[in-house]
């Protein structure tokens, strides 16, 4: 299998061009976590009941669970990644990563539990900050939004510290 990865600078230029297109013809910035919060609302319906979800201030005002631009963008993102993986033969059911294994061993259960917890934490942070690496990191920073740059810098610093604590022993991996 030949290396399917493209030059990261080329990919960055293409993502930049894509955001110019979405800003201009759709009047939408690139973003992920609002759509995910809408999806969370949909997941909450069978647990909390749809009345509860409809009555919630956040879901009613900011993240209405519906098939709209934000949630369909998520569907497209998954389809695009799947298409890319299939085209280059990179689709593979797995959960191994060398950095993780070097620190925490090959246990799949451990990795999945950690990923689940990480998912809870990252999403709470993304909603509290009102954006993620896409909404703040790319779309916010490229508009010179103070919130975007604040997010980028603090997220980076926090990530460096966390990586030191979690994977400090695995520097050779």
């Amino acid at each position, binding site marked *: 299998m030949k290396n399917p990865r493209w030059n990261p600078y080329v990919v960055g230029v293409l993502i930049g061009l894509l955001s110019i297109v979405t800003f201009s013809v759709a009047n939408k910035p690139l973003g992920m976590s609002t759509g995910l919060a809408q999806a969370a609302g949909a997941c909450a319906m069978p647990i909390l009941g749809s009345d509860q979800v409809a009555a919630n201030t956040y879901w009613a005002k900011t993240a209405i669970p519906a098939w709209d631009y934000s949630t369909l963008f998520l569907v497209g993102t998954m389809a695009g990644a799947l298409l890319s993986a299939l085209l280059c033969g990179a689709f593979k059911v797995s959960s191994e990563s060398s950095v993780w294994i070097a620190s925490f061993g090959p246990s799949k259960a451990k990795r999945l*539990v950690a990923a689940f917890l990480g998912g809870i934490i990252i999403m709470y*942070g993304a909603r509290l900050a009102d954006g993620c690496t896409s909404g703040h990191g790319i779309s916010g920073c490229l508009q010179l939004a103070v919130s975007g740059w604040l997010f980028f810098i603090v997220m980076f610093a926090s990530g460096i510290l966390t990586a030191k604590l979690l994977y400090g022993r695995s520097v050779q991996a």
Partner: protein
Amino acid sequence: MMPFLAFLTGSELLWAAVGFGLLFGFLLHRGGVTDFDVIVRLFQFRDFTVLKVMMTAIAVGGVGIAILHGQDLAQYHIKATNLLAVGLGAAIFGVGMVLYGYCPGTGLAAVATGRMDALAGLAGMMVGGIAYALTFDWVAANILPVGAYGKLRLPELLGLPEWVCYAGLVAMAAGIFALVAKAEKKA
């Protein structure tokens, strides 16, 4: 008022969402940023792929959208600078990103390439999203108003003209790329 170029509406806009997402997901995977190791190693200064992709996208997208905005062909969508909420949220996000090994977008894309850990984290993100919605009233009353400066942009904050800030952005990206190239040569 919608900007002049924003001609997509109704169901066209929804189809466009799928199409734009498709391109985004394809690019994330081809860029190599749907990989746990690539993301975590950024925070250890051992792999700069994520930084290269993001800074290039910011510089190219930033200049392009600034030009369109200057011609009234595109609108800005600025998120509010709520100092405590954005700062605290970003700090929590950084912890989550390193533990999860993905960010929300790259995680979602990784799920589609068969990554089971990304899928477990997607389930976690649903729980996190529910937790935020359930605590939102408290957050809105106690966290969001602290240091709320509204839709603030760097040109206003720094008191500099737009073009100076964009020139600075491009220069900064170039500087970062030079530093990264130096670090990669050493490794």
